[in-house]
């Protein structure tokens, strides 16, 4: 018996751009996030991942379709209730540095979501993410990438969310820092039973952290499967990602024949891939 769905996207569509150029970033996304699970949303650049993050966090309204949190349509709620819904989703942004107001020190950043700002709460959160409480008065600009990531995690946890949404949490970090961050999130999840959704283009990270993987391509979820079944993935987008992801051990590295093809290999020009397309190709 599967756990109840905590967060659900029902036929979510979102179109970006102005009158002159519109792109359908999300094209009818159906997704269930079950309570307590660890889900990875994987896709290439341009697949709609970032847009989906905005929708899941209840920050951006879908042009059609619904976002249900605990069974309730978030966008039909009064504004104050929707804000309460946002607090149930803790969000870590892709570019962590720019998600901090440069005027404020770490303690203000973390405490922003807390109802009563107390030094004790901030200190507790810092400890939870493995930072010494002496980090509190420092400014995020003086911290390393990994430390900033932890502060972002502490802030996301400050509202005691039911779900943690991490947008590309490992981008820009080196191997060791990535490992520490992922390790930390795994530990928080073990200790608190928090539901976690990773959004990433790195299948290795997804495989390591998630029980279940949902693959996004051209604004749609094209495949969902348990992590253990990855090698049996059927959809082309999944197989393409799988083949392209390098492994450490040669025995695991099955190079997809497509990458040994003779002649040029340019970026695949899917309908939603950004990039230069010759004017003749304009759809």
């Amino acid at each position, binding site marked *: 018996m599967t756990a109840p769905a905590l967060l659900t996207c029902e036929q979510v569509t979102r179109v970006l751009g102005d009158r002159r150029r519109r792109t359908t970033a999300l094209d009818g996304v159906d997704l269930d996030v079950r309570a*307590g699970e660890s889900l990875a949303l994987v896709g290439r650049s341009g697949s709609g991942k970032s847009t989906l993050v905005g929708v899941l966090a209840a920050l951006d309204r879908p042009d059609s379709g619904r976002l249900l949190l605990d069974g309730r349509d978030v966008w039909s709620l009064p504004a104050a209730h929707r804000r309460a819904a946002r*607090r149930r989703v803790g969000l870590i942004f892709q570019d962590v540095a720019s998600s901090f107001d440069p005027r404020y020190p770490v303690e203000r950043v973390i405490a*922003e*979501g807390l109802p009563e700002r107390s030094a004790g709460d901030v200190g507790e959160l810092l400890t939870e993410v493995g930072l010494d409480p002496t980090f509190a008065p420092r400014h995020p600009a003086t911290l390393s990438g990994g430390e900033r990531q932890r502060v972002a995690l502490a802030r996301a946890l400050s*509202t005691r969310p039911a779900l943690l949404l991490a947008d590309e949490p490992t981008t820009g970090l080196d191997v060791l820092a990535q490992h520490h961050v992922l390790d930390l999130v795994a530990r928080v999840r073990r200790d608190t*039973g928090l539901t976690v959704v990773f959004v990433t283009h790195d299948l290795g990270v997804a495989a390591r952290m998630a029980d279940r993987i949902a693959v996004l391509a051209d604004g749609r979820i094209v495949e969902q499967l348990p992590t253990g079944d990855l090698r049996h993935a059927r959809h082309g987008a999944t197989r393409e990602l799988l083949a392209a992801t390098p492994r450490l051990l040669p025995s695991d590295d099955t190079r997809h024949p497509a990458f040994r093809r003779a002649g040029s290999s340019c970026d695949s020009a899917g309908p939603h891939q950004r990039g230069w397309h010759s004017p003749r190709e304009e759809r």
Partner: protein
Amino acid sequence: MTTERTHTTPTPDGPALDPGADARPGGRPRGLLVVRLPRPRRPTGTIALAVLVGMGAIAVAAPLLTPFDPLATDTSATALPPGSPDHLLGTDLLGRDLLTRLLYGARTSLLVGLVAAAITVLAGTVIGALAAVGPRRLDEAITRVADTLLSLPLLVVVLALSTVAGPSLGSVIVAIAVTSWMPVALVARTALRTQRERRYVRAARSLGLSPAQVLGRHLLPGAIPPVASIAAFEVGHAILTESTLSFLGLGIPPNRPSWGNLLTEAQSHLLTGQWYTVAFPAVAIVITIVAVNALAATLARPESSAW
């Protein structure tokens, strides 16, 4: 290193999503406004501020600094040059002590300047904020009005308003405010709109902050440096406009000295060789404007270093 934490997994009905549940941890964040006034860091700014504060102090203390009445005439002491005993800056053709008139004039001019500028900046900031965070139609309407008013020659409008309202302290202040709010509004609008695009504003929204809280904690503080800068400029502008109006006889009536109407009266003194009746109020105006502009320049640099 685990801490004891009660984490409530949601029941099938879901926990109440109403904002009144402040008692639980994870309730609504409180606190609205965090405003940090930028302090000038550079020596120029500090000097400028000191000069202005000094002038203000002297103006306020005018009755204590001089025994004379600015309006009292003294036929026995007319046209005395600066440096005369009892009359540091000399007297005019009517025997009125020039130092006294300068000090009392400072009171009026600085008062009008500050009050007019305060109203201008307040009105301009509110209007700019409405344009920045309000509905699109309102934004378009406000910018259109502001742009139209900006294209009018302001002095003409001010003169017209003053003529209609009659010369008085109040009408001067209103005329200045009505014709000067536009740059402030546009600066405030741009500054707030820029702030709104920042990712940390999105982060604040994701934490469940209300638009008012986001405005107070992130948008306004970021907008303060440019608005403070233009506010300082507006003070200078108000003082200068008042002086111009008073000089033309449309500002402060002569029953109250102001630097502007001191200049009006001084016109007739130039022919008799009393250049100092013009020099002193003129220099006072110049010093004030320079100090104000220097302060505005240093306020334009944000206090905290960004990324």
